[in-house]
């Protein structure tokens, strides 16, 4: 029921706003493009968001990047029909947008602070002992810093491979490298992370 309402609302936004004079086949093509675009948004917006978040590490930046990704898709909507694998195509655009935005933020000297929207560690009702939860959160932060310190060549495939929806093949297409390279780089990255994590735990 709720999902149905959403679809109707989305269609209304897209079709109601596009009041450019069209006729015949042009109208049909435009409608088809809008339908494809909306379907892409419904299916893959979360994937796009996760890719953006994996790079930018801030929720509002990730959302901005997601919006920008779909704006780019809208600009190139005439090419949508020729796209074989929309998911990978979209992932590639999202990756480029996020990386560009990240570079832009770095060039402006914006240092990412703690994300205010980051959920705090839930101690109660989590079902696991409080010590374990806190410990897990600390390790997650440590790993995050370690990933940031990795060379880009290893970091990029590792980041994308952590996203559930992305297979090694899709990661390879997104980064424009071969699948074997993805596997070997992820393996090396994990080795480095394990070594560093081991050192950190031993110190404690």
């Amino acid at each position, binding site marked *: 029921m709720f999902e149905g309402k959403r679809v109707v609302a989305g269609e209304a*936004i897209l079709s109601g706003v*596009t009041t450019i004079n069209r006729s015949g086949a042009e109208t049909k093509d435009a409608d088809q493009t809008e339908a494809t675009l*909306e379907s892409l948004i*419904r299916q893959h917006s979360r994937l796009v968001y996760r890719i953006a978040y*994996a790079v930018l590490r801030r929720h509002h930046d990730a959302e901005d990047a*997601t919006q920008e990704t779909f*704006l780019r898709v809208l600009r190139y909507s005439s090419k949508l029909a020729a796209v074989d694998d929309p998911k990978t195509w979209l992932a590639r655009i999202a990756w480029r947008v996020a990386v560009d935005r990240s570079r832009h933020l770095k060039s402006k000297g914006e240092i990412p602070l703690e994300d205010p929207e980051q959920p705090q560690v839930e101690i109660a009702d989590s079902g696991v002992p409080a010590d374990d939860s806190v410990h897990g959160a600390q390790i997650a932060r440590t790993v995050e810093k370690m990933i940031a310190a990795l060379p880009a060549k290893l970091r990029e495939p590792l980041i994308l491979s952590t996203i559930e929806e992305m297979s090694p093949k899709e990661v390879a297409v997104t980064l424009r490298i071969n699948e074997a390279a993805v596997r070997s780089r992820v393996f090396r990255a*994990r080795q480095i992370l394990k070594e560093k*994590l*081991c050192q950190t735990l031993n110190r404690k």
Partner: protein
Amino acid sequence: MRETNHREDPRGGDLDRLLDAALAKYADATPREGLEERILANLGTEHVREAANSWWKLSLVAAVAAVAVLAIVVSLRFGKTAHPVIANHVPVSMSASSHSPLPAETQAASHETTVHLGAVRRAARHLAQPAAVVADGPKLDQFPSPQPLSEEEKAALEYVERYPEQASLMAQAQTAFAKQEELEKNSAEHE
């Protein structure tokens, strides 16, 4: 994607598990509720903005085109009068000799330089005034250009045609008179 080495090293297995958990958290990002709607609304706004931009661009192009057409029309209408008329003006010394209105007898007596120079100057003054008219005339093949006969010449020609015998007699008499005069002049010079 996630390798585990549980059998090789129990410590390594723990590390793998820890790392897997940390990486899963790393990628686990849930957007705020209503992401799709926000994206769709944003795309709709972009549609409107593009449409508005296209109208603005179209009107700008139309205005520029109108100004260009107006400029072309104005330049075509008033451009011709703005250009000065350049006459194909023949130099005075040339035109004076070529269009000399002097009769043939005077030209034949070219050794009388004073008379000739005066005539040339008069002719030059006469020709210099209506320069544009002279320049418009067709270019003639013969040099110097033949001049129309004067009234006296026409009358003489008519007389010769009517009375050829008398005319020839008069011409003989005039020739004999001229020869006699010349002889007298020569003898006077010798003396």
